């Protein structure tokens, strides 16, 4: 069923892409104008340090040998990501009367475009991974929402084999953390719990004017900020080793696991930029 629907989606998307590409080249610049834009994702650090070696907020030097992410869907919004009042609808969806959480929702406004599938991202790669061409609406993207599911929990954008490095996880990080005289080899393989909106990262700030593919060969790129992901990870909390290996595992009962989950699903764990030609 999933493959059939995915197949239909790909066919429809291709047809629409073709039609819109032809159409967009001859439409003037007006509000609500349909455009096509290229999307991508990569690993980065907020500090500008290399993704293969950076310092964390807790003073660890982390050297990554592998970093992979299953990313998608990704939605690009016109609305800013500060917190607005909940819509009438979202309030009605709260489980019981008077039982509501912070209920500060994000007024994300118009959807400018969406990557509907999941893509595997090698976060140590030198160039952004291709998330495909999106047919959307011309405008300035001011916030982004993305989802972090294990491969197969959404529609796959590539063949199954492309996700093998993830080994059915949403995130894989492998490397060495150093602090003072301590050196800790680690392997983190994460599946974020499917509870509530835990796999959805909302309100990622952006300020990117989307440009039509016919006008620019640039792309909107989601940067996964690896130093922010592990900002609060205390590698000393790791205690269980991979059998037959010196690598410590991010097991669920550890602070390291909780801190990495918090970092990966934080709106501050991502940055959105326009990468020119």
């Amino acid at each position, binding site marked *: 069923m999933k493959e059939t629907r995915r197949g239909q989606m790909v066919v429809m998307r291709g047809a629409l892409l073709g039609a819109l590409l032809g159409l967009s080249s001859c439409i003037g610049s007006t509000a609500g104008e349909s455009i096509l834009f290229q999307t991508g994702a990569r690993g980065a650090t907020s500090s500008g340090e290399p993704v293969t070696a950076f310092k964390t*907020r807790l003073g660890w030097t982390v050297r990554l040998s592998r970093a992979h992410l299953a990313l998608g869907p990704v939605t690009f919004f016109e609305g800013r990501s*500060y*917190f*607005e*009042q*909940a819509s*009438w609808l*979202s*309030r009605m*969806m*709260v*489980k*019981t*009367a*008077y*039982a*509501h*959480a*912070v*209920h*500060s*929702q994000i*007024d994300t406004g118009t959807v400018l475009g969406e990557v509907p599938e999941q893509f595997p991202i090698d976060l140590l790669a030198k160039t952004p991974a291709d998330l495909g061409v999106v047919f959307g609406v011309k405008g300035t993207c001011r916030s982004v929402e993305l989802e972090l599911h294990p491969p197969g929990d959404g529609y796959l954008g590539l063949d199954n084999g492309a996700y093998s490095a993830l080994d059915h996880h949403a995130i894989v990080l492998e490397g060495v953390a150093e602090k003072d005289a301590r050196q800790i080899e680690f392997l983190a393989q994460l599946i974020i719990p499917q*509870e*509530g*909106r*835990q796999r959805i*990262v*909302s*309100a990622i700030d952006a300020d990117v004017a989307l440009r039509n593919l016919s006008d620019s060969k640039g792309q909107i790129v989601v940067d996964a900020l690896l130093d*922010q992901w592990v*900002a*609060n990870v*205390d590698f000393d*909390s790791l205690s269980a080793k991979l059998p037959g290996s010196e690598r410590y595992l991010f097991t669920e*009962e550890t*602070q390291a696991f*909780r*801190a990495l989950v*918090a*970092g990966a*699903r*934080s*709106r*501050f*764990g991502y940055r959105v930029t326009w990468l020119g030609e």
Partner: protein
Amino acid sequence: MTTRASSMLIAVALAFSAGCTGEDTASSGDFTLNLTGGKGLMQGYPHDEGGVTQAFADGWTLTFQKYVVVVSNVVLRDPSTQDAVQTFAGPVAIDLRSAGTENVEIVTFNEVAAKRLDLDFDSPAATAGITNKHVEQADLDEMVQKGWSTLVVGEAKKGTDTIKFRIGLPILSRYTQCINGNDQTRGVAIEANKSVAGFIWAHTPHMFWDTLSLGDEDLRFDAFAAVAGADSMVESDELKQQNLTDLKDAQGQPLKDGSGKVVVYNDGGLLAPSKQTLYDFVVFGVRESLHFNGIGLCSARPLSK
């Protein structure tokens, strides 16, 4: 039907319509804005509200002795132009619990144009010379000194344990475009030749919810109690000791719930890595606790410093 007849019918319909709603733009009315804390504040926890028992998931009972909120810059705005129609500068500090009544008046606006208006207000830090309504002077002095806009004092009990709390917070927020909790429309309809009342609701559970996201929220106090120290009193700064990625109990062991599961607060991905403490979590949650006419939500943004 002729054009003229149609016009007359529309005019008559509009006249009746205006009479029904009371939103007569040619006249004016009065609007009183109160502050209230509802059942949660007056009765504590547990209590019944809307057919639902509001209780702490970790077994604590909790009562409030003081609940001070600072309000200023109340503005009624024309929704189409956003021009201020009437303004109350304030600021005023109100202790809702000590007032002895459920509603405490913030301001009454007289002769307000009878139409629908947006409501905005601020919750800034208390300042010297602020209008004092029922707040103990020593509390107000401390709020001024520490830059707090909210002060919540009370105690929680579980078994033989009693933990007091005194939590002052610099919420420092501006609330705009408030939704009216009565009818889910925006702002308030001022009725001609009538007095209309509305209220800002200081919604007490926000301080103790374990999520900043929607749904599956629980009221918890264990993480607060764990940092009370030898004096059995939790104060604001002590909440900074609780790391959200590594909550501890009073013995310094991982904080677990009744089923032995590690307690995790869900920040919804909204707190920066440098703000992963219970203090920052509570500040964020309480910032969203001021509503209009029930659960009428307002857009809350930090006041610029």
